[in-house]
């Protein structure tokens, strides 16, 4: 019982002691923490942006509506037949006919266009069928349908409204992968930074390590302070990264709100979710302990007491 208590007290002392050693060289430790923080903040900032982008684009994922503009002068009855035919198609969830007369009423209500349209002898607008495909409809089948419709003599053009959503999604997929690659590389960099810092630390305390080994210190005893140093670098680096992340998002919040207003408020303000916070801290700690462990494994064994 007392042995366990003494052991835990030793751990607590190592833990606090490692922090104390770091504060004795505030500039060097601070710079190391800053570098770790920046390295961790970059992929997490990218991740937050991509994640929020996906949340927005995700709402449009299933919107694959297209509009069929009929040739001017096509009789309304023919347009209705086309609408009925499409409504019966298994790929189509709904097909809505907007007749030329209905369309022009919308425009006439507009104060600017209203005047203009009144000057025209006849309605320049075509009948339009707006088609919403079913969720089950796959892209090649829809493309075939659109091709068939375009080929009809009474169809002027088929317009996909949603190509940009697909492009955005493709871009976001690319960005997400880029975030993963960047995160992997930068966490690797953090491991190297911490490993190197601890290697120097080990060299500076070489005498202490040698004497401790002579006095019967186990490998675990010698290793512990350095592992705690890695732990602190990882934790403080991670916290600094979160600070940088919060600061960046705060700086971006103004432009984002303006952008959101332009898109009719579809954007929520950028937020750091709990997952990102945990990932940054876990990444920092993992890199801290990993870096410390590699340094300790490589360099401590090499120090054997010489008498």
């Amino acid at each position: 019982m007392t042995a366990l208590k003494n052991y835990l007290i030793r751990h607590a002392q190592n833990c606090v002691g490692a922090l104390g050693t770091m504060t004795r060289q505030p500039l060097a430790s601070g710079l190391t923490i800053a570098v770790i923080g920046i390295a961790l903040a970059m992929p997490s900032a990218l991740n937050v942006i991509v994640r929020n982008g996906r949340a927005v684009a995700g709402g449009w994922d299933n919107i694959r509506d297209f509009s069929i503009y009929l040739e001017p002068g096509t009789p309304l009855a023919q347009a209705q037949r086309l609408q009925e035919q499409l409504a019966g198609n298994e790929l189509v969830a709904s097909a809505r006919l907007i007749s030329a007369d209905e369309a022009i009423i919308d425009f006439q209500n507009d104060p600017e266009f209203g005047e203009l349209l009144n000057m025209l002898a006849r309605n320049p607008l075509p009948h339009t069928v707006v088609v919403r495909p079913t969720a089950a409809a796959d892209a090649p089948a829809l493309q075939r349908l659109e091709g068939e419709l375009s080929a009809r003599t009474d169809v002027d053009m088929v317009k996909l409204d949603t190509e940009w959503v697909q492009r955005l999604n493709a871009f976001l997929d690319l960005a997400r992968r880029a975030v993963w690659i960047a995160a992997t590389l930068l966490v690797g960099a953090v491991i190297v930074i911490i490993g190197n810092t601890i290697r120097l630390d080990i060299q500076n305390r070489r005498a202490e390590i040698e004497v401790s080994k002579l006095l019967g210190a186990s490998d675990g005893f010698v290793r512990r302070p350095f592992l705690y140093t890695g732990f602190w670098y990882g934790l403080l680096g991670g916290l600094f990264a979160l600070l940088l992340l919060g600061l960046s998002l705060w700086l971006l919040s103004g432009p984002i709100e303006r952008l959101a207003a332009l898109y009719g408020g579809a954007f929520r303000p950028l937020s750091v979710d709990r997952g990102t916070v945990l990932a940054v801290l876990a990444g920092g700690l993992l890199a801290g302990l990993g870096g410390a462990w590699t340094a300790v494994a490589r360099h401590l064994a090499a120090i054997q007491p010489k008498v």
Partner: protein
Amino acid sequence: MIRFDNVTKRYDRGREALRGVSLEVAPGELIFLTGHSGAGKSTLLKLIALIERPTRGQILFEGRNIGRMPDRAIPRHRRQIGMVFQDHKLLEDHTVFENIALPMIIAGYSQREIRGRVRAALDRVGLLDKEKNTPAMLSTGEQQRVGIARAVVARPKLLIADEPTGNLDPELSLDIMNLFHQFNEVGVTMLIATHDLVLLDRLGGRRIVLAEGEIRSDGNAREPA
């Protein structure tokens, strides 16, 4: 307590530091190892502390063959032994108190025990008022007394000392040797390597003379005058 059976130690460059050494150390003995430098005194002590391993032969420490001891068991073995070095090997960036406390911290004693025993050890070597100093603030003799306090603080079964008075003038040397005597009287087994023959003539105890890696003589010196 310790038994050497025909122990040979050959270093990488082929030099044989010890050749077929056999000896036995009983608990509570005070033994001086003498001989010229290079005679094998340091090597013999290093083999006991497992800083080196024997090339041939057996070394039994309380019945266990330590020559074959796995690396991971070495720390536990060393904790049974107090070591005093010629250059005392104190940590310059730690206080006297912290230096002496180190073996007890390593062995996992509680803060309270450490405080009590370190103070007691400091008292025994007469440096109770210097506990907050760093080693650099002490004289050479005082530094060596701190080294001795560190060696005995965890109450080892065996104390080994390699030229503990090598850097000291005769008066301080005698002082240090008397300190060893005191610890021996409370039952600590001691192996002290020294080539200070003048000093030895003033001390009793068993004396083992080494030359070229072999034991030349082994026996009790005449009682000090």
